[in-house]
């Protein structure tokens, strides 16, 4: 047992940083790869910063694109950490308690990506201080966007500080004190629901856009998030199980699988309900859905995407529902990737772009992201992956060491 004379934050953080960067050649290469992609994204952003959003494929008709699509999807991934937190803390599930920290790290990475996507989408990123209450002018409670600023940053704080506290205690060989962090854990459960509902309300609250102005949007956001988010967490857990010494019990995969199946089936039922409403009685408001699923006036750039998404969605759901391998990691990985990609396309591109097409004046245009826009997006995704990696690595090491010292 190591003896730490103080409860200091500095050695804790220094060790965390050291551990997060140490690893074999493969790991170093992985980190270098992420840094290269981030660098490319940074250069591309510099260009966008100088020339303006004209470097993207967006226009006055499709005025949100790849960035906001990804933002919307990753809010769901962040919210999904609650699917581990809820059973771990409310139902005192031992298996989930072992991996709850991983869910929280994934949530932090997803939120960092969300905030970056919002920032690169802004026309005047230097004016972001106009949004800070007190210094700027915060249009709260009227603007849903201000609600989103509050809930996203609040959720980031909750998901960063709670694990930080627990790990800090474990690092110094202490058990965390319940009353100091449990209230925040329960708060974060409600908060997770709120980040995704508020993000749905951003779109749902606009009568100008009939495709979004739909009361099912919020609940469907939750259902798809609770399928795609645990799928991401499952992917991370499989990697941890294969690549590290940290024990991940097979029971966790079975439990996660059950959550994913329930959420994915609810998501598909809601999707069917929406499709029925749009096409059984085809109204003027169904034109966006027509554009998305079948194309409109010769414009059909989204059609192959949405059908790919639905196929992947159904495939992933079926694979999870009828698993002949009874939880073999390789099989689960394929199922998780399939479901995750399907929901990514459907909830990103498939949700945001058709909201703008046709325009309120009935005009139909296609949107395609530019190379610059794609590079920035990839840079942000790499940043998210780096954040998750750099959080999980020291966290697992501290937990392992703490468990070892408890056992001895």
């Amino acid at each position, binding site marked *: 047992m190591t003896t730490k004379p103080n409860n200091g934050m500095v050695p804790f953080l220094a060790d965390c940083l050291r551990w997060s960067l140490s690893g074999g050649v493969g790991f170093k290469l992985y980190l270098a790869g992420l840094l290269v992609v981030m660098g490319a994204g940074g250069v591309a952003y510099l260009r966008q910063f100088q020339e303006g*959003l*004209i470097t993207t494929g967006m226009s006055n008709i499709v005025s949100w694109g790849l960035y906001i699509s990804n933002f919307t999807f990753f809010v769901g991934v962040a919210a999904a950490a609650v699917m581990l937190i809820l059973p771990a803390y409310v139902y005192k599930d031992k298996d989930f308690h072992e991996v709850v920290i991983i869910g929280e790290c994934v949530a932090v990475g997803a939120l960092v990506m969300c905030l970056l996507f919002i920032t690169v989408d*802004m026309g005047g990123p230097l004016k972001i201080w*106009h949004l800070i209450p007190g210094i700027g002018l915060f249009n709260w409670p009227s*603007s849903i966007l201000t609600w989103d600023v509050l809930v996203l940053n609040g959720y980031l704080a909750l998901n960063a500080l709670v694990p930080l506290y627990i790990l800090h205690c474990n690092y110094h060989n202490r058990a965390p004190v319940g009353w100091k962090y449990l209230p925040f854990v329960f708060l974060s459960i409600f908060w997770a629901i709120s980040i995704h509902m508020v993000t749905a309300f951003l779109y749902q609250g*606009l009568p100008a*856009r009939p495709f979004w102005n739909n009361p099912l949007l919020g609940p469907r956001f939750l259902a798809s998030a609770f399928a795609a988010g645990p799928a991401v967490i499952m992917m991370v857990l499989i990697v941890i199980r294969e690549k590290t010494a940290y024990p991940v019990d097979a029971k966790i995969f079975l439990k996660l699988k059950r959550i994913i199946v329930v959420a994915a089936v609810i998501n598909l039922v809601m999707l069917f309900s929406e499709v029925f409403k749009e096409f059984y009685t085809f109204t003027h408001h169904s034109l966006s859905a027509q554009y998305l699923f079948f194309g409109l006036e010769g414009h059909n750039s989204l059609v192959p995407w949405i059908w790919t998404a639905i196929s992947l969605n159904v495939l992933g759901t079926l694979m999870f529902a009828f698993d002949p391998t009874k939880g073999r990691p390789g099989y689960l990985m394929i199922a998780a990737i399939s479901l995750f990609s399907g929901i990514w396309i459907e909830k990103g591109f498939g949700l945001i772009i058709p909201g703008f097409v046709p325009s*309120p004046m009935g005009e139909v245009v296609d949107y395609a992201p530019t190379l610059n826009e794609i590079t920035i997006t990839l840079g942000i995704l790499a940043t998210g992956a780096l954040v998750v990696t750099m959080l999980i690595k020291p966290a697992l090491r501290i937990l392992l060491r703490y468990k070892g010292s408890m056992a001895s």
Partner: protein
Amino acid sequence: MDDKKLKSSPGQKSSRRSFLKGAAALTAAGSAGLLTGGCGGSVSAETMGLQWEEFFKKNYRLMTPEEKQATVDRLERLARIRHDLDIEVSNREPRENVLYGYAFNISRCKGYMDCVEACVRENNLDRRSKTQYIRLFEMDPGQLDPTSGEGRYFHEVPAANKFYMGVQCFHCENAPCIKACPTKATWREPDGIVVVDYDWCIGCRYCLAACPYWGRRFNWGEPEVPLDEINRRQHYLGNRMRMKGVMEKCTFCIQRSREGRLPACAEACPTGSRVFGNLLDPDSEIRFVLKNKKVFRFKEDLGTDPKFWYFMD
């Protein structure tokens, strides 16, 4: 859109579209926009100071009259330093007992688009992206919804069996765009004009998504207007030069209407289809139209209460 424009028949009689074609020929070279915060080579200490103060100024609505005057002076001085241009930026307040309203005569409009041209020139609209606040939709008989019309027609007018509906910002009393803005950078003035504080807008484009009438335009790149075509009589909330990354829109030509003049579109219309005036004045032409004509508004079901009506003779 550009392809179509170039393909338009060479023998067209109407020269009214020549302006827009001219704008298309205009290239980035030699044209410049006024902006705060460009990256010039040698920037004087004075410019730096002015830019600094401009960057940290408040939302226009929170400024005292002195602060409003100070920012207007700074903008004029910056234009002088950067482009050797004498501009006059007004911060004229709304007139008492005035609420502006607009009516569009769909029986009279023949689609000449003089309104569009006048608007582009008056409001210093970006020539590079060919920004237009006004759109004219060509309609076939049997329709009354501009969304079913053709917003891009490239033939000679007047055309047989066609009529036209103009759309622009409708200056809604219950405007969804204002509600959406996270920084209160867009609001409705007491005289009913919905304005944008360009320096306060962060460019999130939520207002554009919220507008059911497609009334807003975003500056995707640095707007460009040839120096000799810049309208120098400007208003802080109106036609002063915008910068990249901010939202803009029709302001009923606030720089003109607050001086008691007609908006450029209404003045330019050769057919007298555009009626603009004070809704609070019982003797105004707009009140005559509302009282004596059959009028209707676009997307009335959304409850936005626009101050823009259509009517027929």
